[in-house]
């Protein structure tokens, strides 16, 4: 019961946040220099006078600002995010085609970062001054200070000319034609480098965090008890300690989702990955504002959904929160 009420409250809150994004979008269009109709049509696009008249009528641009806002929100509620005048297609269908690759990239990077990061952190925590701890420190430094697009390009140099074992561009080969099983393999093969590049930034944080968290937990009474019972080291580390050390990682993983999407933007551009980031970049060059604002909304939607899922997994991982009820 407590859980359901809690989830409902979070859902409502998420919806309010998303409406906030739309309101912000609306005001950004109006704050931009120039005629809003031109902004909507795309400043560079050769919008005809007829098109402009259509836009003015559709968005009610001659009406008071608040009425315009209501019209805008009403259109979005019907799934109408406007037209991309560059593609001459509705924004929503263009975005729908690009959401998949971005979600795949972001989730793959998150998975790699968490798995590798926790593994490194656990190994390092067992010897706080050891070799692995040094390695974690080096990786954290690179992950923090190296621009992600630069590490991506360095990996391209490495894998394109020195050890050519991974493809460095696109989601499938140019001449790919195969069945669905072969397609999955092909995509995963192309996913390897971009996902790993994006994972490096977050690998740094997860390894550092899980090292600190494991050092804490390994000193706790219940770990000493587990050892005193004569349990094997593997069982102590993985069953007793890790389960408790993983909680802060879930929290951070949720917070990082927005940053992951920002990183994906750059990584998609480096590796020609056909996702939302790539589309956003192209839309900037074409001054395709409806497209950009639509992408901003869907990116925020992804973050809100990710935060909700994080909350839920946190409640599953830590039963105290479920019964505690705030």
């Amino acid at each position: 019961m407590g859980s359901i009420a809690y989830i409902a409250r979070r859902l409502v809150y998420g919806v309010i946040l998303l409406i906030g994004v739309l309101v912000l979008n609306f005001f950004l269009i109006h704050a931009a220099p120039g005629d809003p109709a031109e902004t909507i049509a795309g400043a560079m696009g050769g919008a005809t006078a007829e098109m402009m008249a259509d836009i003015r009528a559709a968005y009610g641009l001659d009406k008071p600002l608040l009425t315009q806002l209501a019209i805008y929100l009403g259109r979005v509620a019907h799934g109408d995010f406007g037209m991309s005048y560059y593609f001459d297609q509705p924004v929503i269908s263009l975005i729908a085609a690009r959401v998949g690759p971005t979600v795949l990239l972001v989730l793959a990077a998150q998975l790699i970062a968490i798995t590798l990061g926790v593994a490194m952190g656990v190994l390092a925590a067992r010897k706080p001054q050891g070799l692995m701890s040094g390695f974690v420190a080096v990786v954290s430094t690179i992950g923090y200070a190296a621009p992600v697009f630069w590490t991506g390009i360095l990996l391209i140099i490495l894998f394109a000319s020195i050890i050519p074992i991974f493809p460095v561009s696109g989601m499938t080969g140019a001449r790919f034609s195969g069945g669905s099983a072969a397609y999955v393999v092909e995509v995963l093969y192309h996913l390897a480098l971009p996902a790993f590049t994006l994972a490096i930034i977050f690998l740094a944080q997860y390894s550092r965090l899980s090292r600190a968290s494991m050092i804490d937990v390994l000193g706790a009474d219940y770990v000493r008890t587990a050892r005193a019972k004569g349990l094997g080291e593997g069982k102590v580390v993985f069953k007793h300690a890790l389960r408790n050390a993983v909680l802060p990682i879930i929290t951070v993983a949720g917070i990082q989702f927005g940053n992951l999407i920002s990183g994906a933007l750059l990584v998609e551009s480096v590796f020609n990955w056909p996702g939302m980031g790539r589309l956003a970049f192209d839309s900037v060059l074409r001054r395709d504002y409806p497209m950009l604002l639509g992408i901003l909304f869907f990116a925020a939607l992804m973050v809100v959904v990710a935060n909700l899922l994080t909350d839920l997994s946190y409640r599953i991982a830590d039963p105290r929160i479920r019964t505690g009820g705030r």
Partner: protein
Amino acid sequence: MSLVQPAAAPEAISPLREAWIVYRRNRPAMFGTLLLAVIVAFVLYGTFLYAGDPYEIVWAPQTPPGTEASVPLGTDYLGRDMLRGLLKGGGPTLSVGAAAAIITLLIGVSLGGIAGYFGGWLDDLLMRVTEFFQVLPALLFAMVVITLFSPSPITTAIAIGVVLWPQTARLTRAEFLKIRELEYVTAARSIGARNGRIMWRVILPNALPPLIVSATLTVGVAVLFQAGLSFLGLDDPNTMSWGLMIGTNRQYVLDAWWPVTLPGVAIFLTVFAVSLVGDGLNDAFNPKLRER
């Protein structure tokens, strides 16, 4: 209170001096400070020693570094001098980074301070606004802002500042919440100090240490943001910057590694130095962490 006086009372030193003593002994932090000083010196004065237009084509395209005396670090895909670009390109990267950090601090400290000091509905409202900005993917939002308003270093700095402030706001709020309950704040209030004075003259100076640390680290993040935006070609193309150098040369990376690698090294070293300084300041201001 004991009546027995200690034989030799240790000389009282100010907290700032104490922090400096700790900082000076911290080798990574001193290394970072030195590295940062060298980078800033190169960016500020380098162009006096090695003048020239970074856009000018001076030698054969893609001359490797160290092969031609007149272009010590080689040339890019058009034959432009890499060293000129690196020296000129540091200015926008560093100044936009610093300006963005200042904007972040201004917005974050004002909103966080008001939220933490007044509490209640104002706190609730401001924290909701903060959360709202945290939901927006920062780089994407910055891209939208720069595209809608014409690209220039000032727009870039504002766009970065506008997306990075929520963390500073949360930190400031937490500090203000903690400090406003302390005796000296009550004392200030009892002698009739107004809210504004208490907030900015009494609480803020005492909340500064963590804010300084966070501002330092924000400079690093802002430098990365500036680099990312100019790499994507969203910054003004007539302003040479490290990110722009990487962006314009990346298509030819398989023919020549240096035009992309060298500016990246410059960005990496800058952010690395900034993070060492930030970590050092954190250790110096936090006596609890000093043992580690």
